[in-house]
């Protein structure tokens, strides 16, 4: 099926948590700001403002380390409820342009504007208008990539941060991709990077020259994935959560990670995020899946069916944690990818209340509500970019 005619936007807010703080507190403007966890408790940086970045501060870095790099930075614990509020505002703006908005995190989304061009003009114009509306209504900047598919759009949005707008035209896909360093390839972690180096692959053009058989031999199933990506092929549709048959979060680590405690904590964050997206769209899930990929590219998925559909983080987490622990009992391999997903989504409808645990369950629900916002000290930035998650 041809995907030639699609127009996909990837929107990513710039240094979101820090930018919200600088907006709300003018005295912070122009100063390095670090939002994140407690440095004394091995917290990590969720967001470093652009002023802090020249010092080497990055998201996912241990907060203690970031403070050493930039001792005069203003360190904030973050106000997740505030960020969630701004996030809702920003999603509402996006939904004015198209109903096809797929949230990736609190401050990042894909939009399919293919059907909106008649109403709002060409995709470039939609992107400019979207950025302008967000700036006008939230006083924040976003970077946007415009491309024929998700993969390219996401690459594009990252190229001119902050306040960037990068457009990849249909006939300029290869020109756009070829010079990009291979590290930007989606799904390529450090193990893949070593193989690329051995094969003399430095950029997308180099990789495109490799025969499909070579890719298959070197990377297994991921080889096919790479083969398509370096040609700019990505047919994944933009699926709003309300239409989704499943909701998932997965992350490829920059380095293979064996630390079970860290992975478990990471999985919890992912689960919290998936649960939040479930709740945002008023869905309950019946199955929970954990996806694991080891450095040899072997991918394992483990699935469990819950007694009844739920949107409570704790219940989803218990299922995910138990799947993960079952796997770790069988293997001590390091991981290059970890993900969690939920499926068999349904409208909440009726719910059988529990005789003994209802109070606890209600409490957990309230907890989820008050901070659906409380995303962890890892913000979305920590999960998706930088040198992978921090380990301290």
């Amino acid at each position: 099926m041809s995907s030639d005619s699609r127009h996909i936007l990837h929107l990513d807010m710039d240094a979101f948590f820090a930018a919200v703080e600088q907006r709300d507190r003018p005295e912070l403007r122009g100063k390095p700001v670090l939002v994140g966890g407690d440095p004394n408790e091995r917290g990590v940086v969720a967001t470093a403002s652009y002023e802090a970045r020249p010092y080497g501060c990055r998201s996912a870095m241990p907060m203690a380390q970031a403070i050493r790099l930039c001792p005069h930075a203003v360190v904030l614990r973050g106000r997740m409820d505030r960020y969630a509020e701004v996030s809702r505002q920003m999603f509402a703006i996006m939904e004015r342009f198209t109903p096809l908005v797929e949230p990736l995190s609190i401050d990042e989304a894909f939009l399919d504007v293919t059907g909106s061009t008649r109403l709002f003009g060409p995709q470039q114009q939609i992107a400019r208008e979207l950025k302008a509306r967000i700036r006008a209504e939230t006083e924040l900047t976003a970077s946007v990539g415009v491309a024929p598919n998700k993969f390219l759009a996401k690459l594009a949005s990252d190229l001119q941060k902050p306040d960037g707008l990068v457009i990849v035209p249909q006939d300029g896909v290869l020109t756009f991709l070829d010079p990009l360093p291979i590290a930007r390839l989606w799904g390529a972690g450090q193990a893949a990077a070593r193989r690329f180096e051995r094969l003399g692959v430095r950029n997308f053009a180099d990789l495109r020259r490799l025969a499909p058989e070579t890719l298959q031999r070197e990377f297994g199933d991921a080889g096919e994935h790479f083969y398509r990506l370096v040609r700019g092929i990505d047919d994944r549709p933009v699926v709003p959560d309300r239409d989704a048959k499943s909701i998932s979060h997965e992350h490829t680590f920059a380095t293979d990670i064996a630390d079970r405690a860290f992975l478990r904590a990471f999985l919890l964050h992912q689960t919290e995020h998936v649960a939040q997206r479930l709740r945002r769209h008023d869905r309950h899930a019946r199955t929970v899946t954990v996806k694991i990929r080891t450095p040899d590219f072997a991918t394992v998925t483990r699935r469990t069916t819950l007694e009844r559909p739920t949107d409570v983080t704790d219940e989803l987490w218990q299922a995910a944690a138990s799947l993960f622990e079952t796997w770790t009992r069988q293997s001590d391999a390091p991981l290059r990818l970890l993900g969690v997903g939920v499926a068999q989504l349904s409208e909440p409808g009726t719910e059988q209340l529990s005789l003994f645990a209802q109070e606890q369950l209600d409490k957990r629900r309230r907890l989820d509500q008050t901070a659906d916002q409380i995303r962890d000290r890892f913000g979305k930035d920590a999960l998706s970019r930088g040198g992978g998650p921090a380990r301290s």
Partner: protein
Amino acid sequence: MKTRLPRHEFQEALTAVATLTGGRTTKPILGCVKLVIDGDRLDLSATDGEAGLRLGVPTLSVDEPGQTVVQADRLLNIIREMADVEIALEANDSHCMIRGAGSEFKIYVQRPEDFPPVPGFEGEADLVVDGDQIRRMIAWTIYAAARETSRFAINGVLWEKHGEQLFLIATDGRRLARAGGRVRGGGTSDFQAILPGKALNVFEKVFNPPRDADGWQVDVKLMPNQALLRSGDRVLSTVLVEGHFPKYDDVIPKDNDKCARVDRLEFNSAIRRAALLTTEESRAVKLSFSRDQLVITSQSPEQGEATIQVPIAYDGEPMAIGFNPAFVNDALRAISFEEIHIELKEPTRPGIICGEDKGEFLYVVMPVSLSS
């Protein structure tokens, strides 16, 4: 071993045994029944590894005492198909012969030494209860037990003795059934023990009122990990369910102030009808109470809706509450009162179904939230 047996009684005993031996098992010996003659009676014993059963059959004559172990289903099928009034049984180390008029069966046997021990009832009973009463109490509670034991769900029925009172309680975490009755005798100390649902199912099938007695009783003996139940010459032994029974008293509502009275069979039938239009995902019927009228409604997004009216006696404030129809009907089917009481407080608080006397029967059921 050589004996003559009344076929009908032998068949009855084997049918009782089959409640334990019929299950799937990886150990062939657990599908067997042990037959022992030591005196003028034949003793049968069987076990599934968790519960055990011993019972006796009178013999017509004993030519030679002894014991043997045979595959229980096979023996039952043979005995069931024989038309004879009496049959002859003869066993040696390798096989067992069953003879009637014109038929002869030879079946191979297992070594009696390999058969797991099945305890008998020894010593004094800790509890003596009326047979009909305990059967009723089990029937009134067992359906509320969970299929598997987890934190608030127990695959078993709690037996709780308080002085002269015995309570049986079962819960799967969403509803709870409690039956109460008088103790007839036994020891003086109070106790709590959780008997597995499976063993109580066997009890229901095997411990029937004897034909020749008006009143019959069941003796109960408790050991650290085991319970024994005896009536006549039948002894059921079972392991106990480990784990803590949830603190059930806390979840029994004490202040449900909206009370309705309704004919049990009429209510049962109305719930059944409304349940026809519920779906697998949303098993809920809505009960709307208003002055002397109950309207039960259900809807299934793809199929349609049902509205059923039931006359009731009710003078409380109008109120609507959702229930899983199966949870309501499980109780209505088990009990036998003509009229039942429904006591409610709020749509999200547990409801009560009971008869005149809550000590005799009490059912607490958690509603289904009708949020959307």
